[in-house]
């Protein structure tokens, strides 16, 4: 055998060994892919931009701290303009180009549409912008995670607060005539009954409706102590409040997560003063002690970040924790195992994103806090302690 042949064989063997060990290493530390159908344009863009920023920052922080057990987290977003067909297209595109482990969807409709496919693939866990109560069913939706309380739970948190503040209070519920708006109605009625509250006033408004004078008259007739709005972002809440104030009503008005962004409430003007609502996360400016994640966010972005940002950030944190649990348990990274990893999350310290340690219950994290807008500070300030629904 010539010296060249020997050298060639040795080189070949070394290369093969090197490549193989490299491949094994790469296989060991395979990237964790978080795909996203994100509404960066369209009617939900106000939230989509924040969600994207939150996921991006959480991903960066996780990777700067060595990834998830050494695995790099890769975020692959696509804009959907908040359209189901575009969201499904984005899902198909991202899953055909990457081995996706985690996915963020932009709406309830998308989650319901893609859920059978996610179950069939069995590779990933799906989270998203939806807090739909229907999704909080581990049997029907075994691969879904809701990054906070469901809409029914949000109303439940508000009702718990009301029951403490004013037992037997008269509570009205004003909701939009959409899937989002109708979601908590039945659950809210049941919870109100359980807590001894009178929720006989339920008003639904047409999507996009601006003339609310008839509905305000119904409120005047019923004279509720509290009115909870659900299914809106901003309009027609300010119109309701200003007309009710003009009629001299002392009713306290409340909202749920998507109408609780500080800058959005600020846009209501003077009528925002005293507006209350439920928020599962701390606000960007929260002065809570021992909140390293909030400090980190503030060091990365020096201007106010929305509640959508917090939602995106928290979703990424929780999913990463679930993946970490799966890896630590030595299990294969697939949908059921990552979902099991989520279920293992008990008393998890979010570094101040949520003020108390959190646990996953079912598909959701049923915790939140009631806030109230302080016009002088131009900020939502805590009106209750953290409320956990068990």
């Amino acid at each position: 055998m010539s010296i060249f042949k020997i050298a060639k064989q040795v080189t070949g063997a070394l290369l093969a060994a090197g490549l193989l060990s490299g491949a094994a290493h790469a296989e060991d530390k395979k990237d964790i892919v978080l795909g996203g159908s994100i509404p960066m344009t369209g009617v939900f863009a106000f939230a989509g931009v924040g969600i994207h920023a939150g996921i991006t920052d959480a991903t960066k922080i996780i990777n700067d701290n060595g990834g998830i057990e050494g695995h790099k987290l890769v975020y692959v977003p696509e804009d959907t303009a908040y359209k189901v067909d575009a969201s499904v297209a984005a899902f198909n595109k991202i899953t055909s180009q990457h081995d996706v482990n985690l996915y963020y969807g932009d709406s309830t409709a998308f989650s319901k549409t893609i859920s059978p496919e996610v179950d069939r693939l069995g590779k990933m866990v799906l989270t998203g912008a939806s807090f739909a109560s229907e999704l909080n069913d581990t049997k029907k939706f075994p691969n879904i995670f809701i990054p906070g309380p469901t809409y029914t739970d949000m109303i439940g948190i508000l009702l718990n607060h009301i029951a403490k503040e004013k037992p037997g209070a008269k509570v009205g519920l004003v909701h939009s005539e959409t899937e989002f708006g109708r979601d908590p109605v039945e659950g809210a009625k049941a919870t109100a009954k359980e807590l001894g509250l009178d929720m006989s006033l339920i008003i639904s408004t047409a999507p996009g409706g601006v003339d609310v004078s008839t509905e305000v008259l119904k409120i005047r007739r019923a004279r509720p102590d509290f009115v909870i709005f659900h299914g809106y972002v901003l309009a027609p809440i300010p119109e309701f409040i200003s007309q009710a104030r003009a009629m001299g009503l002392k009713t306290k008005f409340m909202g749920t997560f998507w109408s609780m962004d500080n800058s959005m409430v600020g846009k209501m003007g003077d009528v925002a003063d005293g507006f209350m609502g439920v928020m599962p996360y701390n606000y960007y400016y929260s002065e809570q002690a021992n909140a390293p994640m909030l400090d980190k966010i503030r060091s990365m972005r020096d201007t106010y970040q929305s509640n959508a940002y917090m939602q995106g950030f928290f979703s990424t944190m929780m999913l990463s924790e679930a993946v970490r649990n799966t890896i630590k348990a030595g299990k294969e990274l697939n949908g059921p195992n990552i979902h099991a990893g989520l279920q293992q999350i008990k008393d998890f310290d979010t570094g101040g994103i949520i003020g108390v340690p959190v646990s996953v219950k079912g598909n959701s994290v049923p915790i939140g806090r009631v806030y109230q807008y302080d016009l002088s500070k131009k900020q939502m300030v805590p009106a209750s302690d953290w409320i956990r629904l068990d």
Partner: protein
Amino acid sequence: MRIGTAKENYTADEALFDTNIQRGWMIALMIALFALPFMTGQYAIYLVCLVMINIVSTTGLNILTGFTGLVSLGQAAFMGVGAYTVAIMEINLGTPFLLNLLIAGSGAALVGIVVGLPSLRVKGLYLAIATIAASVILHFIFANWTSMTGGVSGLSMPPASLFGLELVQPDQVYWIIMPITVLMLFGAANLFRTRIGRAFIAIRDRDISAEVLGIRLLRFKLLSFAISSFYAGVAGGLWAYFFRVITPESFPLLMSIFFLAAIIVGGMGSILGGILGATFMTMVPEILKMMVGVLSPIWPDAVAVMSPVRVVVFGALIIFFLIFEPDGLAEIWRNIRRFFHLWPFKT
């Protein structure tokens, strides 16, 4: 170079494809359509299916607006009728998908006839408003007839099945969508070789003259509404099988505007125009997205920054085409064909 096509009789003049080259291209297209699922991934097939569903609905609207001159903004609501019909039949009766689609189309056609009644008295913008009103009523029914439609939560339906095989994936549903789209396009193209199609065109060009010629406006206007809605109903049925979740919010007014924009951009009163318009309106946002995606490796925040720009570019492209070719993409296509027919001579 081809100077012209000699036609010796009316049959030849009315033929859908008048040259062997055209027939050859058509056969090649059919082969490509059959080969497509074996050559591409799920994402590409998904987009093709979406384009085809939009083509069916756009063609339906083109029959009504482009060929008969009756403006409608109710196409999405008619699709909704078809989608709900398919879902209700599939969930409750488990009937075969072809029957479901046929009934979906027929149900939408009946609704279309009712909605079309005002067209006897009003036209143009007034008719558009009447169809919007009908669309609002249908939306209300979708959202409030809870026992049938599932209310605002909508319906989740099982997939279509063929010989016991469930058609779940885009490359499986494609085998329903593709043949039906081709069939419906041939149907639409052939419609305008018949007395009915010519009556539609006569009504579009001048309805009073058409009536003087003996065309009964009531019958043909309603027939145009029925056929257009049938197409929308079938498209809605295909949409239902494709997504398998139907809510009242699945068929918003914006979707009707999308179809109207598609026939304007593609070319009104041309089957090819409907195809090109629907393809343009569905694919250009995706292509622009891909272009933004190319920037992502070198500019990580490209998706966030460029997404709004992409929407502006899409709008600008529509305006650009309308300014430079008001007759739509179909006319651009015809100009290209003419250029190559006469090449190397100038057109």
